[in-house]
């Protein structure tokens, strides 16, 4: 297990460092800039989707979807960050308590 932990940690750290070390001239190409602007949107959207509907290798519709839907509503109503998270988690917890 220590092999997995130390090797994995080293790999992840080096990737973080490499990103910071790449020369700025690479970034100044418009297409790279474009990718860089779109990438966080794509990754965040994918993270939300997978963490809401993914369960191992299956897609499921459960209390998480309801929680995230309530969180999305709170975001639309411009609720503060922590309230968004609390409402999402609370909704899922409540649904699980009731079912």
């Amino acid at each position, binding site marked *: 297990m220590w092999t997995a932990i130390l090797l994995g*940690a080293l790999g992840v750290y080096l*990737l*973080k460092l*490499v990103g910071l070390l790449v020369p700025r001239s690479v970034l100044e190409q418009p297409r790279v800039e474009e990718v860089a602007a779109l990438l966080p949107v794509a990754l*965040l959207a994918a*993270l939300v989707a997978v963490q809401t509907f993914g369960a191992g290798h299956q897609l499921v519709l459960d209390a998480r979807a309801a929680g995230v839907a309530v969180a999305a509503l709170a975001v639309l109503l411009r609720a503060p960050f922590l309230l968004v*998270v609390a409402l999402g988690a609370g909704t899922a917890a409540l649904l699980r308590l009731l079912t």
Partner: protein
Amino acid sequence: MTDQDWRRTRRAVLSDAAGVGVAVGALGLSFGALAVLAGLSVLQTCALSLLMFSGASQFAVVGVLAAGGGALTAAATATLLGVRNALYGLNLSSLLRVRGPGRLGGAQLVIDESAAMALVRDEPRQARLAFWATGVAVFVCWNVATLAGALGARVLPDPEALGLDVAAPAAFLALLAPRLRNRRLWAVAVAAAATALVAVPLLPSGLPILVAGLVAVVAALLGGGRGTNRGATGGTDRSPAGGNDGAARSGAVAGDGAARGAAGGVGGDRDGVGADGGGR
């Protein structure tokens, strides 16, 4: 910006950072508990949070080991999931302008949350503060929560009963929403989410996120690179505005401004991207 404005902004940034730290901490509790329940020692669990410090990669390590995967598979999966951190770093390097040892330490703080918080700020000083404040807040909360979760694994109520598994997607949603400033960004978000979901049953866990990242690359190649000779493909994804595109481009040719100049000409459809890049 006056000193008073800056003080107000600084307070807002710091309170956002603390908020993100607490929200992520909630997830750290469930990570600590899950890792111990999967068979890691408390020390191993804490080492993961301290050394790897990237939630998705850590969950992947625990998941692979718990499912009987080998050490190398676990390490490789974690590393692959960390690729997005390199891309964040690429985005952040011009913003942070850290040198020497500061960069070695700063690198460890390059994660989803610190990158997202920094990259939504257009002004460099705010962005740097947002990065460091969020990075440090999340690092402290994540590690304390990991320890608490690991120690409390057997006494804590089921993290799912508390809805803690929804804390992460809800937080990511709150980070995503302010970025969806135009139809193109919405389209990328929806396409990326759909791609990731389609990939879930087909690929090892973690990879669907990376595949969704390719959606951003494809979208950028189809619609981007306006400074170059790509007129034929450049107009296809926005046919109503296609006629405008060429005119706008010829008006703003040189260098860095070209992409944004053209963007402005397309009925403001890409204003968000332009503004986003403008701060850097």
